[in-house]
C-alpha cells in the first residue's frame, strides 16, 4: 500500500516505466475502440442509405394493386 499519493505516482522510482505501460495499454485500446465505433457508425449509415434506396425502388410496384 502507498502512504502518499506522490508515492503512488512515484512507484518507488519506477513511475515512468509503470505509468507509461498503463498509458500505452489504455491509450491503444481506447484508440482501437474509438476507430471501431466510428467505422461501425459509418458502415451503418451507408447500409441504411442503400437499404432505403432499395425500399424506394420497391414502392412504385405496389401501386399496381394486388399483393405488394
Amino acid at each position: 500500500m502507498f502512504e502518499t499519493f506522490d508515492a503512488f505516482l512515484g512507484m518507488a522510482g519506477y513511475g515512468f516505466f509503470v505509468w507509461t505501460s498503463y498509458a500505452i495499454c489504455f491509450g491503444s485500446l481506447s484508440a482501437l475502440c474509438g476507430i471501431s465505433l466510428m467505422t461501425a457508425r459509418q458502415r451503418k449509415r451507408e447500409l441504411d442509405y442503400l437499404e432505403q434506396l432499395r425500399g424506394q425502388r420497391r414502392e412504385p410496384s405496389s401501386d399496381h394493386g394486388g399483393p405488394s
Partner: protein
Amino acid sequence: MHRFANPSQFMRAANAALPWLVLLFVPVTVAGLYFSLYASPADYQQSETVRIMYIHVPSAFLAQGVYLTMALGSASFLIWKHPLGDLIARASAPIGLVFCIICLATGSLWGKPTWGTYWVWDARLTSMLFLAFLFLGYIALANAFDDPARGHKPAAILAVVGIVNIPIIKFSVYFFNTLHQQSTLFDDLFSDDRARDALLAENQPEIAAVAAAQETALPPEMMLPLLLMIASFGLVFLILGILRLRIEWMTVRLRVLRAYSPEGRDI
C-alpha cells in the same frame, strides 16, 4: 451449437450479449486495476515494476488466444467454406495486433529496470515480435486485393500456417536458454527450476517447504489482480470482437447491396 453456425443467428446472439459483457467488464476492470495498482504487494526483487506484469501477462495470453481464434476461424473457412469463420478472423486481427503491441511495449518497459535492457533477441521476445508480424501480414493480405473477396483465402492460409508460432512462444522458454522467465501461473513439469529448488532445500529448508507446497509460481495476493486483469482483457476482446464482427458483417452486406443496386455503386 449448430444453431449459431448460421451467421445471422450468431450476430443476433452476439448483439444481445454485448451490453451484458460491457456490464461485466466495468467492475472486473475496476477491481483489477485497484488490486494491480494499489492493493497488492511490491515484489521483493522487482519492487513496484512488478505492477507491469498485470498488463504484460494478460496481453501476452490474449494475443495468443486471439491468434488461435483467428486461425480456427480461418481453418473453418478454408475447410468447410464457413463464411462466419472468415468474418471472425478478420474482426479479431486488429485486436490481436494491439494486444501484441501492448505486450511488447510493456515487456520492454519492464525489461529496462529489471534486466537492464529494453530488448534482447531471446526466443520468447523474438517469437512474440513474429506474432505481431503475423497479425500485420494477415491484415495486409486480407486487404491487398482490389476485389476484397479475393483476399480471404490467402489471409486465411497465412493465419493457419502461422499457428506453429504459438507452441514456439509457449515452449521457447523451456527449449532455449532465455532471459525471459519461465512459468508465471504454474509450476509445471517443464519448469527447470530444479537446480534452484535443490539449493533452496539445502540452505533454507523452511522456505523450500513452503515453495514446494505452493501449486503456483505466484502468491495469492498477486494471483488475484493477475486473474482479474486476464478476465478484463478477455472481456475487451469479446466486446471489441463483437463490435468489429458487426463491421465485417455490414461490409459484406454493403458489397452485396452495391452489386445489385446501380445507384449504390456511386457511394
